């Protein structure tokens, strides 16, 4: 074996894994109805591929090779476990299909079914996103755990439990019926959105959780649009993520300091991503079915206009937030509405929006709420309450740079 051949095989395995992992898992599990088994079989197939391909060279149809190998592992596993004969016959069907596929070189894309399974209402909502990241993208549990601030052991158990539930409860590997589709699709999109982060940076001082999963989330949103091209909200979601991602570079100074949206250098925004986002939003608007994600994307689109006009059209943003809060009154949306209202109608009106939120547990620890509150109180000359709110926002910050930014703001406005 030559070193470069080994390298070749390794790279092929890696790139096939990246591009096809979800498709392979989806295909195998939609037939065997056992997600954990399909993943195990596939990971063994990948290991076998590394050994065989470095020895014999990369096969012409690597995906088909992996599928055939995984199917062998599945059948071996079932024999060892002495499973019921009917599931063995299912496996025979898979085997036969896999045979045909390895001749054709292509196989059906069942990822949509997999996405719907991952966000099924019978599965613990906290497991939706992690399950998607693991089964569709092949991320390992430890990385997912870190991104979600959960102990690795807990995350591992959550994933195992969710997969056992899918198997034992016989959750169907199907695209839901039309009557169910809106709610089920909503859950799929929520899960993808949660992979990106929870707080948006247009709320002054908000700290977007640095989950490092932004690429994965955009990938998933892309997959969803690809699989359901008629769904306006799926495009809205993709547009939203692209708009936010486009500003990544502008969010930090070269020294690493946090820069709020209003002070970002628009030249640092990724214009091709902004363009792609606008395109998705334009196609979505043709279907005339407005939804939460399209509204959120539209808000970001108005912000993005600053690159062209040099101004932020706050009236439009305030209107969009009003519609958003009516449709989906999340804490983030209401805080965003407060900030936009303050821009258009003055700080007192913005503060009134914040005061309308009952201070339940969620708001008590929601950093953007306190950051916006501190800012508005300072604008109104209420220095004492403003400082208290700043301290609260600083204490609730996760991001060091955001914390420094708020400390500076509070010092500037302490007199």
């Amino acid at each position, binding site marked *: 074996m030559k070193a470069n051949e080994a390298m070749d095989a390794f790279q092929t395995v890696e790139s096939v894994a990246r591009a096809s992992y979800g498709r392979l898992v989806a295909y195998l599990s939609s037939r065997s109805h056992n997600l954990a088994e399909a993943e195990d079989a596939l990971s063994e197939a990948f290991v076998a591929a590394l050994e065989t391909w470095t020895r014999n060279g990369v096969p012409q149809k690597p995906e088909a090779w992996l599928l055939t190998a995984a199917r062998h592992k599945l059948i071996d596993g079932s024999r060892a476990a002495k499973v019921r004969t009917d599931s063995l016959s299912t496996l025979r069907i898979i085997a036969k299909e896999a045979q045909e596929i390895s001749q054709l070189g292509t196989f059906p894309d069942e990822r949509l079914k997999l996405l719907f399974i991952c966000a099924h209402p019978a599965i613990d909502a906290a497991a939706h996103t992690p399950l998607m990241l693991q089964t569709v993208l092949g991320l390992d549990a430890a990385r997912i755990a870190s991104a979600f*601030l*959960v*102990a690795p052991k*807990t995350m591992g158990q959550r994933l195992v439990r969710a997969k056992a539930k899918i198997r034992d409860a016989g959750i169907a590997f199907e695209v839901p019926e039309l009557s169910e589709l809106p709610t089920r699709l909503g859950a799929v999109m929520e899960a993808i959105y949660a992979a990106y982060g929870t707080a948006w940076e247009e709320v002054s001082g908000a700290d977007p959780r640095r989950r490092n999963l932004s690429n994965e989330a955009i990938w998933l949103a892309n997959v969803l649009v690809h699989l359901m091209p008629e769904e306006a909200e799926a495009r809205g979601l993709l547009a939203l993520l692209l708009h936010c991602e486009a500003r990544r570079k502008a969010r930090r100074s070269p020294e690493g300091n946090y820069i709020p949206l209003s002070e970002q250098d628009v030249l640092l925004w990724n214009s091709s991503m902004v363009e792609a986002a606008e395109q998705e939003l334009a196609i979505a608007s043709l279907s005339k079915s407005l939804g939460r994600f399209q509204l959120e994307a539209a808000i970001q689109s108005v912000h993005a206009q600053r690159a062209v006009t040099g101004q932020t059209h706050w009236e439009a943003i305030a209107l969009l937030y009003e519609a958003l809060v009516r449709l989906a009154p999340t804490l983030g949306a209401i805080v965003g509405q407060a900030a936009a209202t303050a821009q258009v109608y003055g700080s007192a009106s913005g503060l009134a929006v914040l005061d309308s939120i009952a201070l339940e547990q969620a708001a*008590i*620890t929601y950093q953007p709420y306190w950051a916006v509150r501190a800012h508005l109180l300072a604008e109104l000359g209420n220095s004492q309450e403003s400082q208290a709110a700043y*301290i*609260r*926002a*600083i*204490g*609730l*910050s*996760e*991001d*060091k740079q955001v*914390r*420094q930014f708020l*400390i500076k703001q*509070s*010092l500037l406005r302490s007199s």
Partner: protein
Amino acid sequence: MQYMIMNYEDDAAFSARTDEQKSSAYWGAWAAYAQALKESGVMVSGNGLQPPHAGTTLRLRDGKPSIQDGPYADTKEQLGGYFIIEVADLDTALDWAARCPAAADGSVEIRPVLVMS
């Protein structure tokens, strides 16, 4: 459930405590964090500790005391303080640990308090 949040800080953080340029940001962050714990109703107790060089370590071996200046182990990060919080579960404790200023530069260990029955 009660958890102890242990803050491990490096030399730079310990010296920021008394640095003219950095001390206000350093203490501001800690004071705000403690305040947020208190006002959210999760704080049980907590203390900052003086830097590791102020520590003294004692061992009794075969009845003979051995006393040594400094912390029990010379590691890059040293215990700089702790909080005990009362929260529902580890997930919530981790949310609070992520906001702890030591998480960004040093590390934070979260351990459940042992309940004696």
